């Protein structure tokens, strides 16, 4: 082939004239996509980026105690630091008192080591009375903790701008004073249990959804239109009902004096004075989440089953396969893309589920997202909430990646 450039009839290179001709279309396409792109950027990509950032951002304290940290660079962290560190502390804290912005630093340092709260409060209260020079002695006089190296080491540990301590906390690990990663104290290890429970609940909810959804989807795909439409409405009806309403109705049904318990007592499976607890534990979470997530399993399965020609099963039978063999060898393998899509969808939704476990889960049925919400709303440790959220996000992406490796994401069919 010749390397000569092909020209269009007016002598301009063909590539250029094609670009020119396509420019308008491209512009149109960009303009059409722009609103959605901006929308996603503003409400999705930017907040997630911010969340990732928050989880490692530790600059606040660095900015508040600049002189202290500069002075601390020369300190080896073994014995008590020398005078310049205390002088830096004096200047930084005086400034904070003057600007009345010391509230945050107290909270932040108390996260690092309990005892800081009273230490800083007392110091700030008395800081105006200090005389110039020999700050070290005067500080130790205000509070004896200034003479204990562990507090100063803890203070030094907050110096770096970035910290992944929140992530360690998320898996029950922490830094000790010498910056070694160690296990959290026995009585404070809750996150591993929480993660395992979350994964466990998501896994079993996915399994239950699959078991319930497969026959429904099959029925939907094979029934005559007249009946399948009705059934489809029944499947979708929960979709059109508020999540809160659905969860609340489960609360009505599952409570100890509720109809399900009444039925159990009436059937004689349990004594009236010993009604089983179906709610505020993991059972409630399982039941309500399975029901709520069921459509997400039914719909992908249905859309895949709809494409499987009934003549395939007939062919299987006419070739001598019993109905069971035909199902296992022909029908089931063809539904795997739907099973994959539905399971992935349900699992990912379940692993981050919030409202339902919050309402019916109780203590033993609450999941990681409830803990994230707690840190967002109650403890106000946003950095930690962000770290947990990021870990959840990474986990979901990891599942997606594994699925892609095993089954191939192209095999997914959502509808």
């Amino acid at each position, binding site marked *: 082939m010749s390397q000569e450039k092909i020209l269009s009839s007016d002598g301009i290179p063909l590539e250029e004239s094609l670009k020119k001709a396509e420019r308008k279309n491209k512009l149109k396409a960009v303009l059409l996509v722009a609103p959605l792109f901006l929308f996603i950027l503003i409400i999705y990509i930017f907040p997630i980026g911010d969340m990732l950032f928050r989880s490692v951002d530790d600059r606040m304290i660095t900015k508040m105690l600049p002189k202290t940290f500069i002075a601390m660079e020369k300190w080896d962290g073994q014995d008590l630091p020398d005078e310049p560190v205390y002088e830096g502390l004096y200047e930084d804290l005086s400034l904070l008192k003057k600007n009345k912005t010391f509230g945050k630093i107290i909270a932040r340092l108390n996260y690092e080591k309990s005892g800081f709260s009273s230490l800083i409060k007392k110091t700030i209260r008395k800081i105006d009375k200090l005389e110039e020079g020999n700050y070290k002695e005067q500080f130790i006089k205000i509070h004896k903790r200034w003479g204990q190296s562990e507090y100063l080491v803890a203070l030094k540990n907050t110096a770096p701008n970035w910290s992944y301590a929140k992530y360690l906390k998320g898996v029950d690990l922490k830094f000790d004073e010498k910056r070694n990663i160690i296990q959290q104290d026995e009585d404070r290890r809750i996150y591993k249990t929480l993660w395992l429970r979350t994964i466990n609940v998501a896994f079993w909810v996915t399994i239950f959804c699959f078991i319930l959804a497969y026959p429904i989807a099959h029925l939907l795909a094979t029934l005559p239109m007249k009946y399948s439409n009705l059934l489809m409405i029944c499947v979708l009806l929960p979709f059109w009902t508020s999540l809160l309403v659905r969860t609340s109705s489960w609360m009505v049904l599952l409570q100890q004096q509720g109809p399900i318990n009444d039925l159990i007592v009436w059937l004689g499976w349990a004594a009236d004075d010993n009604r089983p607890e179906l709610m505020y534990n993991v059972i409630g979470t399982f039941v309500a989440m399975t029901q709520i997530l069921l459509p997400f399993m039914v719909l992908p399965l249905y859309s895949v089953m709809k494409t499987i020609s009934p*003549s395939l099963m007939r062919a299987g039978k006419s070739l*001598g396969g019993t109905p069971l063999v035909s199902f296992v060898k022909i029908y089931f393998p063809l539904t795997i893309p739907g099973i994959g899509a539905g399971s992935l969808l349900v699992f990912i939704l379940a692993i981050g589920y919030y409202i339902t476990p919050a309402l019916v889960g109780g203590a033993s049925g609450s999941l990681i997202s409830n803990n994230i919400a707690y840190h967002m709303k109650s403890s106000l440790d946003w950095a930690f909430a962000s770290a947990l959220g990021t870990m959840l996000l990474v986990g979901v992406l990891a599942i997606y990646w594994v699925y892609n490796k095993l089954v191939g994401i192209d095999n997914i069919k959502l509808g």
Partner: protein
Amino acid sequence: MSNDHFVRFENVDKSYDGKQLVVKGLNLDIEEGEFVTMLGPSGSGKTTCLMMLAGFETPTNGQIYLDNKVISDIPPHKRGIGMVFQNYALFPHMTVYENLAFPLRVRKIPKDEADKKVDKALSMVSLQGFEARMPMQLSGGQQQRVAVARSLVFDPKLVLMDEPLGALDKNLRESMQYEIKHIHENIGVTVVYVTHDQTEALTMSNRIAVFNDGKVQQLSSPDELYERPVNSFVAEFIGENNTFGGEVIDVSGEKCKVKLNSGIEIMANPIVAKSKGDKTTVSLRPERAIIDPEKDMDNNHKGKIEEVIYHGDHTRLRVDLLGNKDFILKIPNSSNRMDIKEGKEIKIGWNSIDCRALDPK
């Protein structure tokens, strides 16, 4: 009760909704080794019959015998009937080899023997070397052949084919027709074939059962069906047909006189309408009517050419004849072409024996 027919439908009724009969009192016998086609318009019950034979539908009434055994209580997978489906129904997640090996594997045939059978079946449809392909990687014609090979690989005595060539283009369809016909001739399997394409039926079959309205209208060999249709529906459905409505006014031996609705009288062959006063539709094949007849013919009439349609090998004329404005004539394309123009009056003649007085429409 049954005698020596290989397949026998006995008074079979079928209804899906309890209100309408899709198949009405069907009686049909098929001999071993035959190629029988069920031909009919859609909704005529032919596919239903095939499905009942395969076991995917149960007769509402009546019995079906296969090899002198009642098969109503035998589930499809135990009937041992090969089947080719309309859209091939190849298993899309299996290779060609696995598709063909499926019926052998469920029959627990040892692998080396199964390999031989698969190889033989593939060579029958000249697709050796395609074992590892997936069905999606094959063309429509190749998929069709795989489907045929799969239906034959376990040596069934009876193979059912449900419009297997419907999805192919015209040329491929024709070559596949010959191919299936040759396979049938070579291995002597009994084939029941369903189609709505009359050329396909005429090309391939030993006998054709023309279905309409849930009933077999005529069951006979292709030439018989074309030359001697027994009623108006068959005459109309198979090939081209010119019709005149009228009433029999005189019958004498092999001939009868029919007074057409336009008042003119013609001579016809009494087939269904046999006695004086019977209403009738007279049917005449276009190629049996001749322009400017030289010999004596007992029907001689004048018509006006309404339209001339050039078809290459022949020319079609639409003629206004005896009150029928859609009378079709076919003139072969020969060197001594007549002077044919629209609006011209021509003489048309035919023999009364070719002009069959059938039931009125």
